[in-house]
């Protein structure tokens, strides 16, 4: 059972999957870190992005990696509008209301997709989808390796934006001290919307990285979003590096649980970690809120 011939490929594949998980969690943690809200619509927005990537290929004939260049700004704009026009105004600044509004959005988006496209599972056929890289000890699927590289590049770019640009500095200022930022002339409503937009844009990229090797149906986002919640909680709410590291950890855990427990019970491993982290590290978790 513990033979390295099985174990090493499982771990490497777990790391590759974990990178994309990390990107999804990155969007979630960024929104949490600045707006202090848990975006329950994250999974539904990912599903929407995967459908967009699917139809970009099916209808327009665009390769998912090319589609990413178009979909990222599109989802950035969508995220901006959602926060500025729907979530912000509807929530009246109350945490509980944000929970309900994002949950409502998730239900609406998911079921609009169900209504429009039916419950069928769809896949794209790409000639490179089954190409592999031979590392000697493991075969790795090319799209996953590309995904890994893109995630690292996106994380680096995001880090640069946050640390070097004026908007990035404003975002960090709002995250640290909202009132102080407001008093020094930062438009908090705008920064909130920009942050939500960045988080949503991460999903567009993640969707384009997933679509070559994954399938899409209206409920696919749920599978990812609970994983993303786990990663965010594990890595520390609001921490960008935490999201990436958490992504790798969860990717490997899922891969190993799947190996030893089977596909459907493999998910249990993630939930158990999730519940344990939530329950056993309340000081770390609630420290953020105080």
């Amino acid at each position, binding site marked *: 059972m513990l033979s390295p011939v099985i174990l090493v490929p499982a771990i490497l594949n777990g790391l590759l999957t974990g990178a994309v998980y990390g990107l999804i969690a990155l969007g979630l943690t960024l929104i949490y870190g600045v707006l202090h*809200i*848990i975006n*329950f619509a994250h999974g539904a927005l990912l599903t929407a992005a995967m459908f967009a990537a699917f139809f970009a290929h099916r209808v327009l004939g665009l390769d998912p990696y090319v589609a990413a260049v178009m979909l990222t700004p599109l989802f950035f704009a969508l995220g901006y509008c959602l926060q500025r026009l*729907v979530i912000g*105004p*509807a*929530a*009246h600044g109350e*945490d*509980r*209301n944000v*929970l*309900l*509004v994002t*949950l*409502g*959005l*998730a*239900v*609406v988006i*998911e*079921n*609009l*997709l*169900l*209504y429009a496209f*039916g*419950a069928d599972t769809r896949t794209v056929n790409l000639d490179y989808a089954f190409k592999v890289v031979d590392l000697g000890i493991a075969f790795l699927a090319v799209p996953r390796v590309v995904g890994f590289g893109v995630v690292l590049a996106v994380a680096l770019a995001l880090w640069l934006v946050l640390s070097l640009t004026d908007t990035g500095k404003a975002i960090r200022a709002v995250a640290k001290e909202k009132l102080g930022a407001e008093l020094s002339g930062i438009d908090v409503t705008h920064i909130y919307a920009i942050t939500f937009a960045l988080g949503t844009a991460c999903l567009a990229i993640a969707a384009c990285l997933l679509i070559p090797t994954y399938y899409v149906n*209206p409920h696919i986002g*749920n599978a990812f979003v*609970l994983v993303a*919640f786990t990663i965010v*909680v594990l890595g520390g709410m609001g921490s960008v590096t935490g999201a990436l590291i958490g992504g790798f950890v969860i990717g490997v855990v899922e891969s190993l649980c799947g190996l030893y427990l089977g596909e*459907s*019970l493999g*998910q*249990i491993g993630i*939930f*158990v970690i*999730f*519940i344990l982290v*939530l*329950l*056993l590290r*309340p000081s770390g*978790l*609630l420290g953020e*809120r105080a």
Partner: protein
Amino acid sequence: MSGPSLPHIVLVVAVLATVPLLTVSPVVLNFLVVALLIALVGQGWNVLAGYGGQYSFGHAAFFGTGAYVSAILQMRYGLNAWIAFALGIAGGASVGAAIGALAFRCGLKGSYFALVTLAFAEVLRILASVAPITGAGVGILIALDLRPQAFQFQSRAPLYWIVLALVAIALLIVRLIERSRFGAWLVAVRENEDAARAVGVDTARVKIAAMTISAAITAAGGGFYAQYFLFIDSGIAYGPWISIEALLAPIVGGIGTVFGPLLGALAVKTLGEIAKLVTGGAPGLDLVIYGSVLILVVAFAPQGIAGLLTQLHSRLTRLRSSLPERARG
């Protein structure tokens, strides 16, 4: 706090109880049974969230446990359906107490509490979809046995009265809570937990007790579902749909009010039926409408239908009291 008086509850239940005497239409009765079932499940959510301020996104955990415990005891162990139903409620309450004890002793609140309830419901759903005792992917079919002692009936009317009776009991429980010391503690926790603790309220214990009552009421809904539809599987019993229905009804009707879940369930289900008529029952569209209603209610009527009615009432009384003055002037 001035909730509805006992005569109000008796009147509403009595009016609803006459429906099967007026019509035998299976469409009408089926609609009302489902609406009352959602009102019951929503009343459970309302105890914890409406009065205690703890928003659960995983009430499916209690609904599903009520349904599965009842169905398993009947079909696998040959227990009487009524006893199985009662034990299902006890099972749901225990799950509520256990999750509540874990979550509240660990100090989880707000979004974290919502997340952990969601996660527990999902864990139970996955377990139920693989464990042999729950029928795994196939689900459990309750064998047809149309005798009152088997909790099955020849016509719909008795089941309608049973679910109405359950709703009536839940209404009385919530009214009792509203007027009790326990209810005052619960509202204190909702309004300001630190202040409540400072004046000596054992906040964790109050929240766990509320979650146990909440889970028991919702589990009764699950047990009733199993007897009414005679089939459950992991997606029905522990699926996210029921967690959403459970919170939608009280929010639309009026969160933290005695009649909110009942009003909300009737309104939401009516809306759903209209949507079905208009669109011809396209899958997903009813849920699109539910989601939109949720956002609109939070945005424009945070107190729900009950809040709108109170506003209307106070406006009318003001109008009435100002009328004589105008007449004189």
